[in-house]
């Protein structure tokens, strides 16, 4: 339910970027969403649809790219991708060397990747 505040922050960035680039219109917005970012894609979409009205991105399409959760073992360097959002079988143990010293390297972030604009 916090998607609306995220979309508000997203539009601050969109408007600033569009202004700097001298855009008349933003036609496409591409966002990358980590599976562990806490964002529900459907809620993010509907928040985007209502927020965009009357903005420079009024007619834009939203493209969401989901990013898998990835861990890296600090001992042996092996990277592990969690299949689903933290699948049931997931355990914080490196399957290659058995170490528990792992760090989360992908899946938490929420990025505005690119914009398609008309100048």
């Amino acid at each position, binding site marked *: *339910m*916090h998607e609306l505040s995220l979309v508000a*922050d997203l539009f601050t960035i969109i408007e600033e970027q569009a202004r700097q680039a001298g855009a008349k219109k933003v036609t496409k917005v591409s966002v990358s969403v980590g599976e562990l970012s806490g964002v529900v894609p459907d809620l993010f979409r509907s928040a985007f649809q209502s927020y965009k009205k009357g903005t420079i991105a009024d007619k834009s399409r939203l493209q969401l790219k989901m990013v898998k959760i990835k861990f890296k073992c600090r001992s042996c360097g092996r990277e592990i991708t969690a299949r689903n959002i933290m699948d049931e079988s997931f355990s914080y143990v490196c399957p290659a060397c058995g170490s528990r010293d792992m760090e989360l390297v992908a899946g938490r972030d929420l990025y505005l990747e*690119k914009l398609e604009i008309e100048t």
Partner: protein
Amino acid sequence: MEQKKKELLVLEDILGSNKRIAGEIKKKLEEHGILAVNLLSSPGSGKTSLLEKIGSKLKDNYQLGVIEGDIETERDAERIRKIGLPAWQITTHGACHLEAKMLAKIFDQIPADLDFLFIENVGNLVCPASFDLGEGLRFVLLSVPEGDDKPKKYPEAFITSQVLALTKCDLLPYLPFDTDRVIKEALEINPALKVFKTSAVSGEGLDELCAFLEAELKLRRHQNARAITGS
């Protein structure tokens, strides 16, 4: 008139403005030697009750303050003031989490001589996990009546916290709650998590939790002093 379409590579963090403000808050807290603790949990899992108890234990030796985040009402802040602690209420009017900018607005009211600043987030095990408030420690609370299947259902809160406090443990004899399962699942997704079994009713685990907080405060101040003198 000809319209030109072009692609603009942006790569900007949407949570960037929150992270920036959280970073400023963190810096100020560290300068003042204040340890801020952000408490996350579902509504009704006992955040305020736990704060009342550990607040009463710590207040004789330390300066404490509490920020209360709620959607509406000052009820929680009033409970905290009753035990003699300063409390600042942030009402979010509908928002399901606290954000760093909400804290920044009231930050000038926080005395610089505090030892501990507790931040009770809006009751919600999902959304608050995404927003850094500049805290030094994050606690996730899970109460026994909520059930023992939560860590893997709400992973972000458990992954981003340093402490798991199981609350209402006085109810363990009456409910089918497998403590070992919860701890095992929580450690599977966050092996560094410190776990405390607590009860605000029986007092179980509260001394241990207070001792942990005191040790953390001491450690962090020591590290800060070393960082400042560069030794």
